[in-house]
């Protein structure tokens, strides 16, 4: 019976998407950077309808989900903005899936959660740039290799963790979401706060990832960049297959 409020919430949400989303699209309201009391109130409504069954009616946490006090707007923007929240089913890890809310709704929920206690904010556009004279790709690459590559792979192809968990591939993830993941540490990812990696460091890391995404692999076809397993399989099938074919031809008599 615990899922019932969620189901009701979903119906409400559908109604909101159809009415509110349509209204927003038609009027093209310019969103203010500072969250207004109205936005927080709207966020609280959405929160109660969609999140409260697991996170508690005041975001204090419940059996299904952790406390959201102090997680900040960045957390909400990442979790809801990548479709990981609302969660589909419990398991080792929540998956990325189609986003369930509009930009305005996510911003409202983020404003509400941010109003509970101070936490990481949604990053400034200045730190989401991937081009510019002050961006140091080499530095970003070094930081990525020191802090991130052990889980996410040297070119961000992702990798396995313990007991069914995994570090997701970073290709196609928006600059904002990468930044928010670093600053909030979603699920089992550790936190990289601004004292560890400054906003400039984070910007360089994101720029490096985007560079890798946009440029061809130097070594030719990268076989998903997952390293020796894929490469070994290729050699076993095609390399050894070629050698066996030649051996058969060598041993066969001419017609």
């Amino acid at each position, binding site marked *: 019976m615990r899922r019932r409020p969620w189901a009701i919430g979903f119906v409400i949400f559908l109604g909101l998407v159809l009415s509110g989303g349509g209204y927003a699209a038609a009027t093209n309201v310019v969103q203010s950077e500072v969250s207004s009391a109205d936005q927080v109130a709207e966020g609280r409504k959405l929160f109660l309808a969609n999140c409260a069954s697991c996170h508690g009616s005041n975001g204090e946490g419940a059996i299904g989900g952790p406390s959201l006090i102090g997680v900040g707007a960045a957390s909400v923007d990442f979790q809801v903005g990548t479709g990981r929240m609302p969660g589909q089913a419990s398991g080792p890890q929540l998956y990325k899936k189609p986003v369930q809310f509009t930009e305005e709704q996510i911003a409202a929920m983020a404003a509400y959660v941010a109003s509970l206690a101070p936490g990481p904010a949604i990053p400034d556009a200045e730190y989401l740039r991937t081009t510019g004279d002050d961006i140091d790709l080499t530095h970003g690459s*070094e930081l990525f290799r*020191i*802090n991130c590559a*052990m*889980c996410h792979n040297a070119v961000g192809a992702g*990798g396995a*963790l*313990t*007991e069914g*968990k995994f*570090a997701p591939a970073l290709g196609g993830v928006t600059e904002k979401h990468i930044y928010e993941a670093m600053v909030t*540490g979603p*699920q*089992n*990812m*550790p*936190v*990289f*706060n601004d*004292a*560890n990696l400054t906003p400039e460091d984070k910007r360089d890391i994101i720029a490096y990832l985007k560079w890798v995404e946009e440029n*061809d*692999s*130097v*070594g*030719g076809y990268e076989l998903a960049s997952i390293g020796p397993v894929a490469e070994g399989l290729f050699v076993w099938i095609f390399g050894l297959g070629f050698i066996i074919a030649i051996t058969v*031809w*060598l041993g066969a*008599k*001419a*017609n």
Partner: protein
Amino acid sequence: MSEIEKTYPAGLATNIQKPISDPGIEPHRVRMTDKSEKAARGAEQQIAVMFGISIVGAFIAIWGFVAFPINSLADTRNGALWMGIGMALSLLGIGFGAVHWAKTLMPDHEVSEARHQARTPDEARAQAIAIIKTADAESGFTRRKLIRRSLYGALAVFPIPALVIFGDLGPQVGDTLKHTIWKKGVRLVRDSHEGGTPIKASEVTLGSVFHVVPENLKDIEDHGEKLNQKAKAAVLLVRVEPSELKEDPAKASWSYDGIVAYSKICTHVGCPVALYEQHTHHLLCPCHQSTFDLADHCKVIFGPAARPLPQLAIEVDAEGYLVAQGDFTEPVGPSFWDIRQS
């Protein structure tokens, strides 16, 4: 009596009354190229084409080298690709041509060579024994004990200089496996090729991970030595909710307000263990999946590692920076036979 003629009690041995008969040589099959002059000419042309491909391949390899001067990373790829294709064609063209030539045009009459008897004839054996006996009698090897024994002694001592000389090649391992450059008061700094900056305890927020090296690493001038020392001294710094730490009372002073530091070098075969999960506190080694529970003194909970990752005792200096209380109390990295002896 040959093997076939022997009789065996029923049920004891396999029946070898009817061994597989010698199939002999297969009947000769005449090749197309032997039957028809046209086919032979065709094969000749095919072989010439293969050798021709080899020549073209060689030029492709030269073109690949010349046409892609290395100005960017992409040029490296294209140059290497075309040189590789060219060289492969060049080599394979000669190889395939030669084999095709041998198979289609060179004589194909069957030849059989009988195997030699493996055993040396008795006559030759007797001769060899006679030679040895004569040599023994003439040299007095058996009779003159003093000579024989002193020769044994000389042969035994002879290799010793080599052992001493080769044993002295390269530096002695000494106690390098047992110590790192961590010392009391050495600051923990961020891993960076530029030397790294020190870390304040207040900067290590809950769930944070810092990849750390000792501050005195940057004082090492020699690059090789620096890498050797870094390979032993690398540390992972994490803050865990103090209530979630299962601390041994004897080691309770090794952490600082939930901040713990562990060697990043796996105790299995020395891979860098750095895959940390914030909520399960699992620390995973990517090489062989050894998993350590960071909240429980890095106890091994899965995989081939045999002992926990050594913990670096830390404290905070007067300026609030994290410093080591001293070196690790046990060797870092893969275990070895006398690891427990200090």
